[in-house]
């Protein structure tokens, strides 16, 4: 992994400084004294009522209204030394886009965002802001409550999309170079957008029948409506990106085939694949799903609308979800929405170690999700039809910190107890997708099946082949995948330009 304690690159510093010194920004700063700005309360994003929303799949948050967005933008102090930018993995010029909102120039704000982040309406919704940009916001240091950067990001991007005036940048003249992107997740989509703008011919190859990766098959509608993703994919198509669906690279075509078809450079963004299971007795009983399977049935295959749609899913009465990340929260909240009387998170550490976004945990609690901390299942029991009916659990306590710095859970002797469940969703992580590695023996992969790259360019050991996102990190975040993608796109453009 790259060094996290990196310094701000000099070019970024210079461009932040230039923006800071623009006349209109100076004016705006003067228009309201810092003391007044600090008095404004953080604007709340309106939400659907918990006891109503946990019965359907409509989006939980409504987004900021114009007047609240303007007010929230005023809270940002337009710092000379904007720490927030350092907290954002792609280094968005945060004060610039927020001040454009304050100035009422919403579409310009969205364009500013898109200079560094091609999917702002998505990141505004799903980034763990509280541990990234908002964690280091100077206003937070001063008042304890950060600027709502994520909400503002979402506001600007949604405004632009809904205004129907999405800016289509002029593509540079065609370079005659062909690029193949493997995987239509956030990483692949980002590289596609960047390179098509540079004049390359870009084709995205995707194994599933819908583009978006985890954003369509994993993250549910109530958190990220499908139409947003569809709009982003439409946007890429308008820029000239070609999509070839239902192609499993490594099976339907190989990298070598693509090379002989005249592709000059490649990006592997195949994401995380194989779901982990716990390997405990009874795990293959009916009613025990991986989160990938459960969420794919509901989101991609629309089991919510069964039997109008053909794919079924178990609607348990008592659901247990194993894990403490976003995937676990999404699964538990989905089970609740599908009618579970009890939907519980079962996590082996305690609340503070849970990796999920704070907002998701909060929303889950509001919606009536139960939390069983310091608990782990050790085996399952089935009925005469081999359907899961109960789960034996063990209580844990926290011991010494492990390699990840989190305190290791240690079982407490004789603490076994039985939990009655008829639906179990295992959300304890994935390993990198093994398909390309297996079918491209020349490609260097690490011991977790992750593709190895040079972190400065995202180049793999094969000439012209780059990679990024979950396939190199083994399960991370949307914004990290997009950050990798931007570095890869720069590396690929350089490579393509040097190639005769």
């Amino acid at each position: 992994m790259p060094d996290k304690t990196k310094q701000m690159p000099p070019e970024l510093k210079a461009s932040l400084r230039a923006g800071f010194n623009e006349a209109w920004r100076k004016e705006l700063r003067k228009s309201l004294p810092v003391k007044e700005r600090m008095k404004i309360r953080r604007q709340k994003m309106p939400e659907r009522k918990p006891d109503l929303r946990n019965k359907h799949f409509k989006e939980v948050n409504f987004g900021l209204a114009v007047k609240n967005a303007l007010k929230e933008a005023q809270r940002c102090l337009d710092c000379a030394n904007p720490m927030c930018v350092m907290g954002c993995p792609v280094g968005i010029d945060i004060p610039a886009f927020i001040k454009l909102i304050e100035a009422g120039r919403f579409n310009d704000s969205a364009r500013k965002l898109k200079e560094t982040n091609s999917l702002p309406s998505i990141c505004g919704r799903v980034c763990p802001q509280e541990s990234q940009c908002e964690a280091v916001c100077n206003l937070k240091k001063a008042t304890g409550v950060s600027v709502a950067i994520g909400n503002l990001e979402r506001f600007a991007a949604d405004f632009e999309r809904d205004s129907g005036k999405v800016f289509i940048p002029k593509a540079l003249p065609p370079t005659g170079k062909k690029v193949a992107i493997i995987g239509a997740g956030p990483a692949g989509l980002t590289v596609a957008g960047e390179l098509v703008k540079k004049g390359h011919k870009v084709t995205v190859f995707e194994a599933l029948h819908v583009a978006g990766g985890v954003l369509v098959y994993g993250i549910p509608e109530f958190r990220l409506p499908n139409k947003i993703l569809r709009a982003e994919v439409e946007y890429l198509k308008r820029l000239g990106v070609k999509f070839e669906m239902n192609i499993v690279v490594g099976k339907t075509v190989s990298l070598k085939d693509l090379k002989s078809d005249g592709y000059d450079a490649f990006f592997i963004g195949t994401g995380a694949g194989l779901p982990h299971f716990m390997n405990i007795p009874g795990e293959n009983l009916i009613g025990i799903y991986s989160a990938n399977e459960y969420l794919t049935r509901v989101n991609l295959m629309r089991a919510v609308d069964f039997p109008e749609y053909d794919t079924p899913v178990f609607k348990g009465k008592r659901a247990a979800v194993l894990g403490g990340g976003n995937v676990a929260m999404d699964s538990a909240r989905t089970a609740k929405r599908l009618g579970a009387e009890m939907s519980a998170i079962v996590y082996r550490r305690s609340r503070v170690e849970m990796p999920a976004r704070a907002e998701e945990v909060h929303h889950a609690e509001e919606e009536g999700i139960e939390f069983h901390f310091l608990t782990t299942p050790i085996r399952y029991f089935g009925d005469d039809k081999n359907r899961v009916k109960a789960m034996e659990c063990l209580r844990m306590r926290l011991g010494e910190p492990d390699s990840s710095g989190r305190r290791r859970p240690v079982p407490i002797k004789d603490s076994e107890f039985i939990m009655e469940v008829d639906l179990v969703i295992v959300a304890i992580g994935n390993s990198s997708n093994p398909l390309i590695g297996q079918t491209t023996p020349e490609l260097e992969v690490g011991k977790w099946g992750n593709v190895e790259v040079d972190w400065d360019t995202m180049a793999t050991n094969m000439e012209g082949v780059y990679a990024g996102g979950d396939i190199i990190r083994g399960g991370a975040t949307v914004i990290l995948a997009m950050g990798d993608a931007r570095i890869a796109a720069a590396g690929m453009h350089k490579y393509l330009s040097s190639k005769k």
Partner: protein
Amino acid sequence: MAKIIRRERLVPNLHLLEIEAPQVARKCKPGQFVIIMPDERGERIPLNIADWDSEKGTVTSVFLVVGTSTQKLSILRSGDEVPVYVGPLGKPAEIKKYGTVLCAGGCYGIGAVYPVARAMKKAGNKVISLIDVKANYLLYWEDKLKAVSDEFFVSSRDSYYDCKEFIPKVLKEVVKTTKIDRVISYGCTYLMYTCSEVTRPLGIKTIVSLNPIMLDGTGMCGACRVSIDKKTKFACVDGPDFDGHLVDWQELFSRRKSYFDDEIQSLCYWEKENFPKS
């Protein structure tokens, strides 16, 4: 979108589906499968590849009508399109010169085992084909299979053909008189299971093509997990071919029935939509 070249009923309830898919046709190997979705609201279901023509760019499967998806496939006509057709998936069958290879097939497996028999023959094996049908009018692809087999037996319950026993019994007789180096059994789960039980005490390596419920077919979801030698494997990427003596058959039988009630509901819904008041 993939175009249907031909869909025809081979025998009652079993249909042939030939699809235009040049990229898939170029890569097919015996023992692999495709995932197909009959329409926009359909399920993604796996079908074995029964034949292909890389020059024409087409791929053929044989399917048995059991539920909504296969019902939907059975009314397609040439020129129609399906939204999802992806493959070839899974590991190819291991083809080598073993000596004498016995290919046992029934139901859709008669078609599915054909490319394996053909490749085994080409690899220099003596190929014995053992086909099971319920009645004489349910046999298809006799000529195709005969052309790649040194010996060819059919058992049918109506005693029209060589004998009326269910395949495993026939298999038991054959292994008494002939030295078999490998058995390949494709078709319904029960047939593959009983064939494996016949060869288990004799220690004849028996390869089966497992058919658990699948979803993506690319190793992403774990729907297709099966226990092989007490270890969990994903049939779509680790298989579908496995050693029949190591399979946890009871688990497979029960997991295949996971959605029994839903499937009936789904089919009733579809029939009501398509044949109102009939």
